[in-house]
């Protein structure tokens, strides 16, 4: 979908968004569809990364969009609309998780000491995985599985900073944590993902990802 890829936050797009938001506030409610169209997939991705369940993520994405519409007057132009929308989505997803998943045990990595040093265990030469391999569903699947296996505090930070491209400060604000915590968790998340996906690794991480037997999806 070309419009979903080009309508990112360049100045032209932002000008366009300002106009749209003003007109929506002035009563042209149906323009809201235009406003959110470029972000539908990102909103779902943010919800899914937190909830790890498609049905919940879809419902949360819908709720977040509705909330954005209801509170459109509270949007302040100093932040990007996309950032604001993702923040709403994160809040919605976290609320739902608290409600419905209170008794789910988080993965072991969550209990790791955040302050302790993380030592990489695998130093296999990382053959670069070209971006083109993302055309393959099984590659995207492996990446999604690796991400889902991280503890939530690492997952959230990684999703906001590295997938949604929020800044460190915006990520900190969205999650209600300090910028220093964002950086610490980001380091952990990135190193863990590297290790989960590092080719040539025969450890237990890779068998959890069913990458065993030396068969790599790339």
């Amino acid at each position, binding site marked *: 979908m070309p*419009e979903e890829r080009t309508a990112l*936050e*360049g100045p032209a797009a932002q000008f366009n968004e300002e106009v749209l938001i003003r007109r929506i506030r002035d009563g042209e409610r149906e323009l809201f569809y235009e406003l959110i169209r470029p972000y*539908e997939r990102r909103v*779902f991705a943010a919800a899914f990364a937190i909830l790890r369940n498609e049905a919940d993520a879809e419902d949360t994405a819908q709720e977040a969009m509705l909330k954005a519409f209801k509170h459109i007057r509270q949007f302040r132009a100093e932040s990007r609309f996309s950032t604001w929308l993702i923040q709403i989505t994160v809040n919605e997803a976290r609320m739902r998780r608290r409600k419905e998943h209170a008794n789910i045990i988080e993965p072991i990595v969550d209990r790791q000491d955040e302050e302790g*040093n993380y030592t990489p265990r695998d130093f296999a030469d990382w053959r670069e*995985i070209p971006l083109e391999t*993302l055309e393959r569903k099984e590659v995207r699947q492996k990446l999604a599985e690796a991400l889902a296996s991280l503890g939530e505090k690492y997952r959230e930070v990684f999703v906001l900073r590295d997938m949604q491209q929020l800044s460190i400060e915006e990520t900190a604000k969205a999650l209600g944590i300090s910028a220093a915590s964002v950086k610490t968790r980001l380091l952990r998340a990135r190193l863990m993902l590297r290790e989960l996906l590092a080719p040539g690794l025969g450890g237990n991480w890779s068998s959890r990802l069913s990458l065993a037997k030396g068969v790599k999806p790339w």
Partner: protein
Amino acid sequence: MVVTCEEVWREVSNYLEGEVDPTLRAAMEEHFRGCKRCTAVLDGTRNVIQLYGDERMFEVPLGFSHRLHRRLEENIVPARRTFLGWMVAAAAAVLVAGGFEVARSSVFSHPELRTEHAESSSGVPPDLMVVVATDGKTFHIPGCPFIHDKARLRTIAAREAMQEGYAPCVRCMRKYLNA
């Protein structure tokens, strides 16, 4: 200044964010030249960021958009919508989309982008000096950690880079993309 492998691992993420001071940065680069293990960690971490940062990672279930719009329609737009109302909305949408296209194309024309996942580059100052790798797809601020092939770099004006189809790096060019 000399850094150990442990220090490199602790800072590799900040290094990729461009958030380490010049002294540490130089020390880390020196370390990478002599340490295969840390280079493997650096390359892998950078690749992780690039892979997950790709738009193709945003997948939605079949029918997602349709169901979303149905839900919005139930809540946002008054249920009874006149034909005139539809026409006005459609015309407005066309106007908005058209205006956007004009605004984009009037600033720079993109010949053929080397990557289809480029962000709009119209906020980048055309005279800004940037670096491109011959086989690369993106242009960067000199020294950006996301420059891959450091051996074959050229420094050119952003205008030329865009004319040659390079797209701005979403990392080091961020401030211009969100201007």
